[in-house]
């Protein structure tokens, strides 16, 4: 993955799925992932930042070098020190949004995602095919 994966608004967006635990409400994760996909924005999704930290995943170094990064994960203190544990320091400009403490609506608003859209053309076609 190249170093500059910024979307049209210049922000790089990362979503952590927290795949190994159930501490993030499943409904929040599902809704955030759905809204991110629906928004049309470029974003990256990783299974579990804790696992990446333990494995010293090279992608963490790339993310730590990023000035304009927003991560949707858990508590900022946890994310910051997980990166540190892998040998990297997050820049002060990095924004960490907390799926353990905020609702999906609040997170979507923070991310500037468009309001819930109506069904896409594909969904309408799929609905039509089943009728």
């Amino acid at each position: 993955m190249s170093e500059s994966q910024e979307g049209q608004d210049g922000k790089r967006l990362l979503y952590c799925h927290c795949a190994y635990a159930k501490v993030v409400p499943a409904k929040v994760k599902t809704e955030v992932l759905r809204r991110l996909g629906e928004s049309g924005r470029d974003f990256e999704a990783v299974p579990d930042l804790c696992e990446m930290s333990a494995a010293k995943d090279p992608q963490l170094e790339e993310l730590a070098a990023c000035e304009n990064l927003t991560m949707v994960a858990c508590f900022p203190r946890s994310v910051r020190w997980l990166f540190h544990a892998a040998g990297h320091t997050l820049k002060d400009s990095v924004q960490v949004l907390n799926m353990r403490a905020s609702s999906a609506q609040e997170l979507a608003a923070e991310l500037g995602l468009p309001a819930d859209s109506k069904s896409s053309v594909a969904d309408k076609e799929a609905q039509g095919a089943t009728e």
Partner: protein
Amino acid sequence: MIATRTKETAVLLMEPDESARLGDQERLDLLSALLEAGHPVARRAQIEPGTTPLAVLAKVDVGRESAPLIEISARSPGQVVDDVSALRKTRQLDKSAWTPWFPVIDYDRCTNCMQCLSFCLFDVYGADADGKIEVRNEDNCKTNCPACSRVCPDVAILFPKYTKGPINGDVVRKEDIEKESMKVDISALLGGDIYAALRERSEGARKRFSTERDESKALLERKRCLKALKKDLDIPDEVLMSLPSVGDIEERARRAKEKMIKRRARSQTVQDEKPAPSREEWGI
């Protein structure tokens, strides 16, 4: 210690235009399946120039010749996951294997008292070349056991996957430090003001077991402490059942002593080689 991962290329979900766009549920199901299987994925409208993804997932042929294209229109999320797994050959997320549960140190709060290193029986902690505490063997940490964070006097140990704050990374409030359930007073069980004793002996605390202590007594003390504090420390039963034997502890103590002797010998050699500072250098 967990094996360090090498750099891997990403899987890209391409939706360059309306004709290639998935339905919302279809996209969600696919992304969720890939993430649950351990595959990182990027959703993109365009491929970054100069990059070669591991695979491109798309509803239609997006004309990408240098990377394998997985046309997802007629494949279930499970089938797509199998295709990606076959290409990647690694990173199969196995939740029955090691769970990434391990202590994470907040070095803004850590005072390097080494109490965690002294307390942990599973060799999770170590000290680096400068004598600074570090998490060395993440995979030795017992899943769901947050005991070391409960005996840290400075609330400096996080377990990001723990349920309660501030151990889960939440902001540390003054009342958290005061709260009885947060700062477990092991001195009541072990006798004496253990916290003060450990702080005063910060040099000795670098070793797992001091030369003055009886290792088997230390193990018995810890076992008694852990059983009595099981509730307060939130230690899972399987951790109490898997405490190391006296022999294991004695072996670790022997290795720790050897390391300490070597470190001191190195330190003495450096001191012997350096001339003592003059009065002028001291500024006298």
